[in-house]
């Protein structure tokens, strides 16, 4: 057993405990997957279609619902580095290993033991313990020193103070959070602090994230798929704000004539629908609009003119 230094993190350092793996249940219909009989040719011209009609398809329904499993009946612990001062561990102790330990120390001792993470700094095998309660399966660990190699045992602390390891993690090394103490004499500079400052060393961890997060948040807010779950309301884009009102006016001009006629509105020629009807929509600003509408028969022999006038005044 390596020498051991008690260094239980203070209350301030202690991260929020996680009791269960986070899960979200998404209620939705069974997805209907459409399987093509053959892939669409690469150059297939489909621009003319308003919506993609797709190749010939057959229906395929995924029938068995699936959820993330609670575990894999593994006996292991995995350690990840969050930053120079924090590690993250997740683990699983399976029944087989638990049985072995019960045989070793007795079931009654095991029942009265507490689940413990023993964190080792592997250079000197100093360690500290973190007591795990409430069936947590993962934990954030504050470690004292950057640029050190750590590993963690998940195990049981018996009432008489014995520690029985159930699994040992991988080894991880935390990064430095400052300039290295190692200097290569072939590559010296008269003023390391200045080099550090000129390189932007005092602004580390800032910069890109701000805008990237804005960009990404926008994508989520405005582009979440309706079929996945409830949509974010467009109003959320505006953020929180006091009571408000917005109003605007548009004007619709519509009519009909012979399908073969030529129609101009305010002097601009417009397209008629096949049945000779037309409909135009204008954003209507304050002021007076004179809207001459003129139809000319296809042989040019006859013309009709209607001239509505509209005035908008906003107080």
């Amino acid at each position: 057993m390596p020498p051991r230094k008690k260094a239980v993190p203070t209350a301030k350092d202690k991260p929020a405990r996680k009791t269960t793996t986070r899960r979200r249940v998404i209620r939705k219909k069974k997805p209907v997957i459409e399987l093509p009989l053959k892939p669409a040719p690469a150059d297939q011209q489909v621009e003319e279609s308003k919506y993609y009609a797709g190749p010939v398809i057959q229906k395929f329904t995924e029938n068995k619902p699936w959820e993330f499993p609670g575990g894999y009946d593994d006996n292991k612990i995995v350690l990840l580095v969050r930053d120079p001062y924090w590690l993250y561990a997740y683990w699983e102790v399976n029944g087989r290993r638990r049985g072995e330990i019960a045989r070793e120390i007795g079931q009654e001792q095991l029942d009265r033991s507490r689940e413990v993470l023993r964190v080792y700094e592997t250079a000197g095998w100093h360690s500290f313990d973190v007591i795990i309660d409430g069936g947590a399966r993962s934990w954030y660990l504050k470690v004292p020193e950057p640029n050190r190699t750590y590993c963690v045992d998940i195990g049981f602390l018996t009432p008489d103070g014995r520690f029985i390891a159930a699994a040992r993690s991988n080894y991880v090394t935390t990064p430095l959070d400052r300039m290295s103490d190692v200097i290569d004499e072939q590559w010296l500079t008269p003023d390391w602090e200045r080099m550090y400052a000129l390189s932007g060393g005092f602004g580390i961890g800032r910069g890109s994230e701000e805008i990237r997060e804005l960009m990404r948040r926008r994508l989520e807010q405005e582009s979440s798929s309706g079929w996945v779950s409830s949509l974010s309301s467009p109003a959320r884009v505006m953020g929180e704000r006091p009571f408000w009102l917005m109003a605007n006016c548009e004007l619709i001009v519509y009519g009909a004539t012979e399908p073969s006629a030529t129609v101009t509105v305010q002097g601009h020629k417009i397209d008629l629908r096949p049945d000779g009807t037309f409909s135009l929509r204008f954003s209507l600003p304050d002021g007076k609009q004179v809207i001459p509408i003129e139809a000319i028969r296809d042989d040019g022999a006859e013309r009709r003119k209607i001239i509505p006038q509209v005035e908008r005044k906003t107080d």
Partner: protein
Amino acid sequence: MEKGYLALVLHAHLPFVRHPEHEDFLEEDWFYEAITETYLPLLKVFEGLLNDGVDFRLTMSITPTLASMFVDPLLQDRYVQHLDKLIELTEKELERTRWQAEFHELARMYHRLFQEARELFVNRYGRNLVTAFKKFQDLGKLEIITCGATHGFLPLMEVNPKAVRAQIMIAAAQYEKLFGRKARGIWLPECGYQPGHDEFLKEAGIRFFLVDTHGILHGTPRPKYGVFAPVYCKSGVAAFGRDMESSKAVWSAAEGYPGDYQYREFYRDIGFDLDYDYIRPYIHVDGTRINTGIKYFRITGNVELAFKQPYHERAALERAADHAGNFLFNREKQVEHLYDWLGKKPIIVSPYDAELYGHWWYEGPAWLNFLLRKIHFDQTTVQLITPSEYLDRYPRNQIVTPSQSSWGYKGYAEVWLNGSNDWLYRYLHKAADRMVELAQSYPHATGDLRRALNQSVRELLLAQSSDWAFIFKTGTCPPYAYKRTKDHIERFSKLYDGIRANAIDLPYLGQLEWLDNIFPEVDYMVYA
């Protein structure tokens, strides 16, 4: 004679958002919007520079997921349909705005923009933007680099080095196939570097990668030139560090150029502004309002969205020219100062998300255009360079092991490892371990077994995208990220169980090959 170098690096990335099972899928719009607003405008800038004989150098990562979408016929066709609807909408807008000159002008701008986009995409580039960008690489103007296969955050995969290696080897193989040569550089996803991963880069034939500032500054031993010269890892692969000062000029929401009041306001889009019945055919099929990309207002000032003023393209472009001049002036001063202080020519590495240009900062491509022209015509202090060129010219560099780091908030792994997303890793790691187990158990598979093994790789890779963890972090209820993670882990698990039970569900496998068709040539033995 130049006194230093500027390496502009654009990181172009989108996760693999391809949903053949739905006729209209909102997340695919990320891709279509980025084509219209970022990728085509960048190509237009490059074409213009070429026509005008302006020499330039730019580095751009095109991630394997984005490249896969660029060459996908279904998405290519859907993009053209998407554009056609926008063109139809702008035609209506031309009419609707006839009595309001300021908006009518803008409707014309968008009408022109979308028509140009269609012309470029369909006729000029034959719908394939990989070949469009490749042209500029072949001309020596653009250095295209690769990225992790699906943008997996590599330091959090460290527990299974074979999974890290696979992200790199699969990316390198795809790059070689699409770009006709080996990748010389890589953008490590999220600039996430873990000492030792450079060995995999070396194996893939990659010469350099990019890290955030502190990756170099906190390297061991101390880097003599800070971020103003690359360093070699022990493997011989070079690392270039991000310059903070030039980054901030563009990135910072408060001080950066994109917040200027003349620039286009992102959040006033006619998809939200106009009468529902009118806009209904151009929003999501289920009736949800979405951004159309047609935006008529400028940032105006610190005012509510309702009080934004109409956008003036000309005024905005003039401001972009001013900002390009300001950026160049600052780089000249920076280079002169560093040249004197370091006693050698510094390299300033300025990496940005490509989608920042055009998509977020509408005038970004114009700014870049002005900047590249000014660098060419107006001065001699700063010369544009790519990392490869720099290494060719200056092969002697200090040997330093960069520090574990990322370009995320706080500089390490917290963005992708926190209370909102830490639960993912239990499943991602398990799937990676199982993939290695499968590859080692079935080393010479053929036929349907081989198909199932290769599809397992695709599902694992897609689950590993750092985008999902990022979305969990930034949003309160990100159902799409959850769905994607769950779908791919589920599909992987079912394939694994089928292979292990010697009972592969062939119709199911066929369905997955059709749904998740990324990396058609992948070989599962990369995990052995």
